[in-house]
Each structure stands twice: as structure tokens, then as C-alpha cells.
């Protein structure tokens, strides 16, 4: 297949035409006939007892069609956590109900306790202001340590603020303790992985509609995984039969994790649509996004690294408190546990890993998976403590890492944290990084910075992550309440063009371009004749959605399997047409031919025959050319990388400027290198954002002081250098048919420790005895650290 459309081609993203010309269709763009509008009444206090809610005045306001409170949903189910975690003592985690609307108590600022449906948004807003809620403010539980010792509970019925106390691997606990006790050297670091607000460009939005004549519901919503949303609403929350509910996620303007989950607003608009007999739309404003989208990260960690006299790693021991916020969001219990603890061996041949994670309820927005989800937290802890150890031992940080790397001849490698790494070459990545980042030129650049009065630092990092989470059998044993496969249908139309229905949802990832490249490559037909259908449960077989860098590795594999089935059937049809057996048929560049002869039929001729089966072997082959495959992977895929960052720090102001950022990643085989590079760029921007600028600040009363762009800093183009990105060192994944790994999160996983390592190196070079600064490394934090280190 020509490289301009098949696997490996840097094809321009076809979806960008509509995105860049303003012709995408997002949920808020959709206007259904007789549509009405929902606006929510949200708590202004972090924690309060709902004594009464008087909606009588609101109900009389102009244009108001209905008013709902938590009382209207006491008989429906809660929005569940998708992963059951058991504590070290065997007790299951605490799972307080997450209602559609708050009932009894409000538990964070922004918690919705009522909703108004009206003819216009402004009328609904007016009516919300007329709701009289008597809410008795209770002490806010914000700090995790305070939460664990408090006798005030976020959820009174569970009589604790601890969700679980998880140990991994519990059987390693004593041996790890002993190794650390007896080690030649132990490096200890306490750090905070800062809470982040996802800030998808498109706020969440949902439209519920109901057809009384058939009992069918439709939900248009901003979702990364419409099938999961349908499942949660059907099986857990509203009990709508799954076959009576269609969930459509049209164009979605970014998610970063925050749109994986089902939210109460989605259930509300469906229930309201049935009651008022008209479609109900809700669109979040930016303040609602800040207050109610599931936040990311928020770990407080103590990590210890034990080493022998030669610098060999002996054990990692981690003690983490993970904030889950006021309610358990769908993946919130998996993120700090199996997506974090299992990575705590890093890229290293460390024999012992022990991780303790206490998940804590607080009166803050729910926290869940956000780009990287657990792996950034693991990587940050590991790579910061290694850097500190190198400094304490007087070793070169690159050499210390190399000394402990898993080597290429050790695969498959059983990590001490319970995973089996299938492929990688960390030294090759480090070699490439040293070349691309021009590490040998650093000292000259440092001198040049110093001549300008600036401190310059170099930070490096080696990361591994696990994505394409799988297999279902394993995650089921580990507590997952869902399977983690994906599905695809390849539908060849009679005229030879192809629709591919995929379970993965594209909201920036470029699936509409990359998936056709795969099918095009396999069938040898032009990619422009292949389109991708996604995001509509009525059109696609099933799907587990897009998150955890799983789309290509899992759903892409399903596409391959379905396309393979197409080829098998098409060869049978071609064999009949050419009067040979299908073993004699080969497919090249879209033509089925019989080797050694001039007999051939085109793919299009076969497709037409499948749908006009005159002279067709109906006794042995069905008409039509459409195949579906479900693919459940054998393992995670394990992208890895070596990163370098150089910063300049202004000693007078503490301001950090990232001057160089290099990311060398192993993504296995690459389908579209341009899209992969773009994914890395986005991940780096978010990772640098976390490292330097993004600060989610709740005060002691639980007010989110950084609830707008006036106070929450997003990284901007002028905060970032030109990135040096390389993915030439791919080691193919050994267990999926494309040999691909995931690239969506890598940049956000690898970059934060790289940046902070560089800042600490810069400060050390300036004579400041500073071994750690918590993220975000803002100017004031750097300056205060310099003052305090004097």
C-alpha cells in the first residue's frame, strides 16, 4: 500500500477540516424540536445539612416547567464506582451512594441539590435564584490528614472518611520493610502530586429526550464512552432498559478523563425529559466545569528508595494518601491503586515494591482519572526519589538509572509490582535522548545562562506506563466491575466503500484518520473510501470507550480482527467468482488474484457480488460483507520513554522558564507519526502545566479559590519551548496484532518529574540547598524555598 495513506503515513487529520472551520457538531450545537433547558442549584458551602428546600416560588416563575430536588431521586440508584478495592484487612471499600441530586447533605461546593427546567436558560436561572434552600453549614473536611482523624464525616452512614486502606503487594510488605531497614542507603522524599482541573475546552453538556409512543430515551452527551454511560444509567441509576436508551456522544471537545464518567446531570435531563414531555438540555458554564468536573491527581506521598553501596535499587516503599473528593467517581478507586501501585517498580530491576494507599473522602469535587491516571503519580514519585538518591550518592542521574534498567534480554519481565512487561529497550531510549537533547552540550548552555545571571538546570527521566488496560480476566480478579475489551464492525457497502463502527470514541485523538489507515493498509484500498462511525450506541456494536491510551491498542486490534474476517469472506467470494478455491486467492493492493494466472477481481467487484448474490454460493456463504470482532488483549501495553528538560531559573524572582524539552518515547509501531507527535505535544503541555503552573486551591472552608481562569493557570504557548520529540526507538508490543502501544498520556506522565528535576538541579547549581519543591513550581514557591534554605 502506498505510504501516503496506509500504516506509517503522516496523513493529515481529516476531522480537522470541520474542527478548524467551525463546522463540528458538539452537544450544545444540537437543537431538538421543542427543546427546554435545565439549570442546577448548586451548593455554595462545602458541607451542609439540607434542612429544607422550598421550590414553590421557583415553580411559579415565568417559563418554568418543572423543578426537581433530591427527594425526586431517592428511589433510583446511585452512580457506582467501577472498581471494588479491598482494604489490607480484607474489608471491601466504603461505597456511599452518589445520588442524582444531593439529598440530606451537600458535600462539596458545586454539589447540585435542585434543578429547574424552563423554556429558556435565563428563565431557568431566574427560577434557580428563587429556590429557597435552608442549608446548615457543617465543618468542611478538606485536608486529608484532618479527614482521617476527624469525627465529622463526609458521609455519615459510613462513620469514617477513609474509603480504603490498600496494600500492594501485601505479601511484600515485611520483606520491603526489612530491605529498607538494612539497606546501605535510603533516600526519602515527601511530595504532593497536585490536584488538577481537567479544563476540556468544551464544557460538559447533555440533552435528554424521550419518545412516549415507544418508551425510547435518547441522551446526547459529552462522553468519552457512550456505551459505559448507557450501562451505568440503565443498570445502576435510572433502570431504563438498555435497549430503550440510546447514548450519542457527537463531537466532543476534549475530555482528558473527565468525560469518561457518568454524571448526575445526564440522569437528570433524561428523567426530566420524560416528565415534561420535551427534550431537556443542560450545558455547563465554565464555573460549573471547575466545580464539578472530576478533578485529577491529588496524592500526598512519602516514598523511600533503598540502595546498596553500588547504587543498585533494593526496594521502593510508598505511603500515599489519595483524595477521592466527596463522592466516588466511576474510576476513582482504580486510579490510585491498580493504575498507580502496579507501576511502582518503574523501568527498574528492583526486587521489592510495597505501596500503601489510603483513599480519603473530603468535601471537595470528586477526583478521578486524568490524562495518565495513576501512572503520572507513580512516575513522579519514582523519578523524583531516584534523582534525589543520585544527588545524595554523588552519582550521575542518567548512570544511576541505566544501572538499574531492565535490560532487553530480560523480557518478558515480571516486575516486583506485579506486571509483566512485554517489550522495551530503555538504554536505547536513553541513548537517543542524550543525542536528541544534546546532553553533552548542557554545560556550555549552563555557562551561557549563568552569564545572563540565571541558574540553569538539567532534569532527566525514564518512565514506563501501562495502557490499553487488560485483560478482562485479570482486571476482574483485581476488582474491576467491567471488562476491558473493545469492539469494531467493518461494513463493506455494495459499492465498495466501507464504514467502520468502533467502540473507541474520538474527541481529539484522530481516530477518524488513523483507523482508516489500518483498514486501508490491510485491504489495499484507498483510505478516503473508508469512514469511521463512533459515539452512537445505536450505530456501533459495543465499546468500552477512550481512555488510558487504549484506542489503537485495543479497539484498533478489534478493527484488525474484523478486517481479517472481511478478507476471509471476501476471498471465498472471489474464489467463487474466479472458479478456484479460496486458498488460491491472494489480496494485493485491493485486487484478489490467483497466483500464477491473470485471473483477478477487484475488491469493489467482490463487494458488489456480496450484495447482489446472483450466481453466488448461497449454500456455503451468506450474502453481505460485514464483520464484527470483539478484542480482549492479553496484557497491557507498556510504552516507555526517556525525557530531558532544561530550565532557567531567575534567582531574583524565582521564575522558571522551560528552555528545552525532549521526549523520546517507545510507542511500538506507529500508525500515523504526525498524530503521535501531536499527542506527545499535548501531553507535554499538560505535564509542564502540572509541573509549573496548574494549582487547584481549596481554602479551609472548601471554597475553590482557583475556580476561574483568572486564578487557575493553564499552560500557554509562550510558557512552552519548541519540543524535541522522537519515537524512532519503538519496540513492538508482542501481543497485539499491530504491535502498537499507547501514546495519548505519555507526555503528561514523563514530563512533570523531568521539569522538577531540572528546577532542583538549577537551584543546586546556584548554591541553594533545596532538594524538593512541590508542584506547581510557581515563582513564589521557588523564591520562598530559596529564602527558607538560607
Amino acid at each position: 500500500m502506498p505510504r501516503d495513506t496506509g500504516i506509517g503515513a503522516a496523513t493529515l487529520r481529516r476531522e480537522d477540516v470541520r474542527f478548524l472551520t467551525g463546522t463540528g457538531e458538539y452537544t450544545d450545537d444540537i437543537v431538538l424540536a421543542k427543546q427546554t433547558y435545565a439549570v442546577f442549584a448548586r451548593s455554595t458551602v462545602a458541607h451542609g445539612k439540607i434542612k429544607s428546600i422550598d421550590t414553590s416560588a421557583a415553580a411559579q416563575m415565568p417559563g418554568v416547567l418543572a423543578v426537581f430536588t433530591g427527594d425526586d431521586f431517592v428511589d433510583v440508584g446511585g452512580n457506582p464506582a467501577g472498581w471494588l478495592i479491598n482494604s489490607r484487612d480484607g474489608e471491601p471499600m466504603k461505597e456511599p451512594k452518589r445520588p442524582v441530586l444531593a439529598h440530606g447533605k451537600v458535600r462539596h461546593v458545586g454539589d447540585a441539590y435542585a434543578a429547574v427546567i424552563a423554556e429558556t436558560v435565563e428563565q431557568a436561572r431566574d427560577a434557580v435564584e428563587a429556590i429557597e434552600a435552608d442549608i446548615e453549614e457543617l465543618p468542611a473536611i478538606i485536608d486529608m490528614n484532618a479527614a482521617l482523624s476527624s469525627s465529622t464525616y463526609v458521609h455519615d452512614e459510613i462513620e469514617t472518611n477513609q474509603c480504603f486502606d490498600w496494600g500492594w503487594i501485601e505479601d511484600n510488605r515485611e520483606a520491603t520493610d526489612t530491605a529498607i531497614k538494612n539497606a546501605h542507603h535510603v533516600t526519602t522524599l515527601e511530595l504532593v502530586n497536585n490536584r488538577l482541573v481537567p479544563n476540556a475546552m468544551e464544557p460538559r453538556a447533555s440533552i435528554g429526550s424521550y419518545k412516549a409512543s415507544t418508551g425510547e430515551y435518547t441522551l446526547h452527551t459529552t462522553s468519552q464512552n457512550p456505551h459505559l454511560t448507557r450501562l451505568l444509567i440503565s443498570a445502576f441509576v435510572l433502570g431504563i432498559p438498555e435497549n430503550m436508551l440510546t447514548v450519542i456522544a457527537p463531537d466532543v471537545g476534549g475530555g482528558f478523563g473527565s468525560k469518561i464518567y457518568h454524571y448526575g446531570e445526564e440522569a437528570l435531563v433524561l428523567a426530566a425529559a420524560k416528565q415534561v414531555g420535551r427534550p431537556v438540555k443542560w450545558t455547563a458554564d465554565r464555573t460549573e466545569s471547575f466545580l464539578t468536573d472530576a478533578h485529577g491527581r491529588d496524592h500526598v506521598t512519602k516514598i523511600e528508595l533503598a540502595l546498596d553501596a553500588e547504587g543498585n535499587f533494593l526496594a521502593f516503599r510508598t505511603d500515599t494518601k489519595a483524595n477521592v473528593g466527596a463522592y466516588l467517581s466511576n474510576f476513582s478507586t482504580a486510579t490510585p491503586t491498580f493504575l498507580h501501585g502496579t507501576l511502582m517498580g518503574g523501568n527498574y530491576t528492583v526486587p521489592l515494591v510495597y505501596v500503601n494507599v489510603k483513599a480519603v473522602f473530603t468535601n471537595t469535587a470528586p477526583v478521578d482519572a486524568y490524562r495518565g491516571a495513576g501512572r503520572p503519580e507513580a512516575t513522579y514519585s519514582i523519578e523524583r526519589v531516584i534523582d534525589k538518591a543520585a544527588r545524595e550518592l554523588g552519582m550521575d542521574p542518567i548512570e544511576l538509572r541505566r544501572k538499574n534498567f531492565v535490560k532487553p534480554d530480560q523480557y518478558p519481565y515480571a516486575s516486583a509490582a506485579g506486571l509483566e512487561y512485554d517489550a522495551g529497550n530503555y538504554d536505547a531510549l536513553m541513548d537517543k535522548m542524550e543525542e536528541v537533547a544534546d546532553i553533552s552540550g548542557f554545560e556550555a548552555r549552563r555557562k551561557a545562562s549563568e552569564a545572563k545571571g540565571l541558574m540553569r538546570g538539567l532534569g532527566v527521566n525514564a518512565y514506563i506506563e501501562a495502557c490499553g488496560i487488560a485483560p478482562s480476566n485479570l482486571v476482574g480478579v483485581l476488582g474491576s466491575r467491567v471488562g476491558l475489551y473493545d469492539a469494531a464492525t467493518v461494513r463493506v457497502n455494495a459499492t465498495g466503500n466501507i464504514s467502520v463502527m468502533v467502540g473507541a470514541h474520538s474527541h481529539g485523538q484522530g481516530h477518524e484518520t488513523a483507523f482508516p489507515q489500518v483498514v486501508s493498509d490491510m485491504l489495499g484500498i484507498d483510505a478516503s473510501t473508508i469512514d469511521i462511525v463512533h459515539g452512537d450506541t445505536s450505530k456501533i456494536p459495543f465499546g468500552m470507550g477512550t481512555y488510558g491510551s487504549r484506542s489503537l491498542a485495543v479497539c484498533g486490534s478489534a478493527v484488525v480482527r474484523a478486517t481479517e474476517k472481511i478478507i476471509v469472506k471476501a476471498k471465498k467470494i472471489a474464489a467463487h467468482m474466479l472458479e478456484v478455491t479460496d486458498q488460491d486467492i491472494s489480496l494485493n493492493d485491493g485486487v484478489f488474484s490467483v497466483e500464477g494466472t491473470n485471473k483477478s477481481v477487484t475488491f469493489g467487484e467482490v463487494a458488489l457480488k456480496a450484495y447482489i448474490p446472483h450466481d453466488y454460493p448461497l449454500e456455503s456463504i451468506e450474502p453481505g460483507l460485514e464483520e464484527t470482532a470483539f478484542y480482549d488483549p492479553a496484557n497491557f501495553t507498556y510504552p516507555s520513554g526517556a525525557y530531558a528538560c532544561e530550565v532557567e531559573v531567575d534567582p531574583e524572582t524565582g521564575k522558571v522558564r522551560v528552555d528545552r524539552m525532549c521526549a523520546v518515547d517507545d510507542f511500538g509501531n506507529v500508525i500515523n507519526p504526525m498524530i503521535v507527535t501531536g499527542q506527545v505535544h499535548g501531553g507535554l503541555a499538560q505535564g509542564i502545566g502540572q509541573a509549573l503552573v496548574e494549582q487547584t486551591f481549596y481554602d479551609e472552608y472548601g471554597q475553590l479559590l482557583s475556580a476561574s481562569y483568572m486564578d487557575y493557570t493553564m499552560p500557554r504557548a509562550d510558557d512552552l519551548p519548541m519540543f524535541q520529540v522522537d519515537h524512532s526507538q519503538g519496540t513492538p508490543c508482542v501481543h497485539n496484532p499491530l504491535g502498537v502501544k499507547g501514546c495519548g498520556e505519555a507526555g503528561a506522565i514523563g514530563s512533570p518529574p523531568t521539569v522538577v528535576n531540572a528546577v532542583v538541579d538549577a537551584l543546586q547549581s546556584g548554591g541553594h540547598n533545596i532538594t524538593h519543591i512541590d508542584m506547581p513550581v510557581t515563582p513564589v514557591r521557588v523564591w520562598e524555598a530559596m529564602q527558607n534554605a538560607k
Partner: protein
Amino acid sequence: MYNFDVVTPNTIAEAAAAMAGDEAQALGGGQTLIPTLKQRLASPNTLVSLSGVSEMQGITKSGDTLRIGGATTHHAVASDGSYPGLSGLAGQIGDPAVRNRGTIGGSLANNDPAACYPAAALASGATIITNTREIAADDYFQGMFETALEEGEIITAVSFPIPQAANYQKFVQPASRFALVGVFVAKYASGVRVAVTGASNDGVFRWTEAEEALSRDFSAAALEGLSVSEDDMISDLHGTARYRAHLIKVVTARAVTAAS
């Protein structure tokens, strides 16, 4: 947004008459007011749009004085160049969209404690000209979001004496890119004036110790040994009081160096 009426006067007299109405609110470029309205944090009955008042548009230089109409945009000032220090400041406000809408009169009337223009007006000893009187900058700024303007009074122009040298340095609050600390230094034959924005709980203020030192010796070295008390400084998630106090000196030195 709550409902309101909009009037679009063509003259200062018409604008002043409209402002006499009940709950009337002047609208400059709307860069603060419109977001405030959208969040339902203000509920004026009438918005009096000043952008169509031609008498309030434009920049005129006569001798060493620059007169800027109150409805003149930041972009127009940034592009003017008659007073390079002031144009430099205007070019640092917000982004191009903000600079093409926001006006000098709107900024000074709002007197955000982290806005840029108050530093220029105070350091330049500008005169705030309203529909009823002229107010010296030293008398105009009266604390955070507080000014000498009376109810219904409109800033029609601002008159700046052009200094021998001037510069504005802004150390930005990273999210809003308003000034975490902004310092405008202006050197006149009569002496040096230094105004600080972003830092103080009392809004823009003059750093008189620095003015005295710089009037003797207009160099960054003249600031050595001086310090700013952290007592009245803002302390928030972007900067501690002592950090802001420290930055004032750093930023002032940079402004002096850039102006020299």
C-alpha cells in the same frame, strides 16, 4: 445576565444625561463589566455605552502633554508611540482581543488593584479629566476599586505629561496575566516618580523612598539598601506578602534599567 437597556450617546453631554438615570452604568470596552454581567454579579438598569462618543476618542500631543480620550482603546495607545513608556504598558495589557476593546477610561474608572494603567497615571502625575472637573492622579486613586469619581461621573480624557524617560515592567500573575507586581517609573525634570500596581491591599501606590533615591541617581544601584514593608501587601495563592514586597524592588530596578 439580567436584562438591561443599552443607550449609545454620541456626545459627552448625552452620556452624562444618560448616566443620571436610575442604576445607570457606564460601559467602556466591557472587558471587566461584561464578564461581571454574565455571571449575574451586577444588575444595572441601563448600560451607557461610551464607545460612540467621538469627543472621547483619540490621542493628541501638544508640547510635552499627551491627551488620550477616555474611550481610546489600549491598542490605539500601544500603537501611538508619542509616550513610549505608556505605549509599552498598553501593549502589555491582556491580549489583542482585550486591547482592541478595553479602554483607558474604563480601566482607570474600575481601578482594579492589579491593572496596569493606574501605575502609569500615578507615576506620570496624569490628570484625570471628567465631564465635570479635572482630578490629579495623586487624588484620584483611593484604594482597591475606589476612586474619586462620583456617581455618574465619566472619564472623558486623561492628560499625561511626557517624561524624559519612563518604563513599565510587569511581573505577571500567571493565570490572569494582570500584574502580580507592576512598576511604572517616570523621570521628569522635577524628579522621578515610581508607582506600583498589583501588590498592595490599598491598590496602586507611589514608592516614595525609591522616588527620592532615583531622583538623586537614576540607576538601579540607587535602590540598594531600600526595602518595601510587607505589611500592606496582598497575600494570596500567587504570592506571599513578603514575595510581593521583594518583587517591588526587583521590578523597579528592572524598570529603571530599561528606562535608562
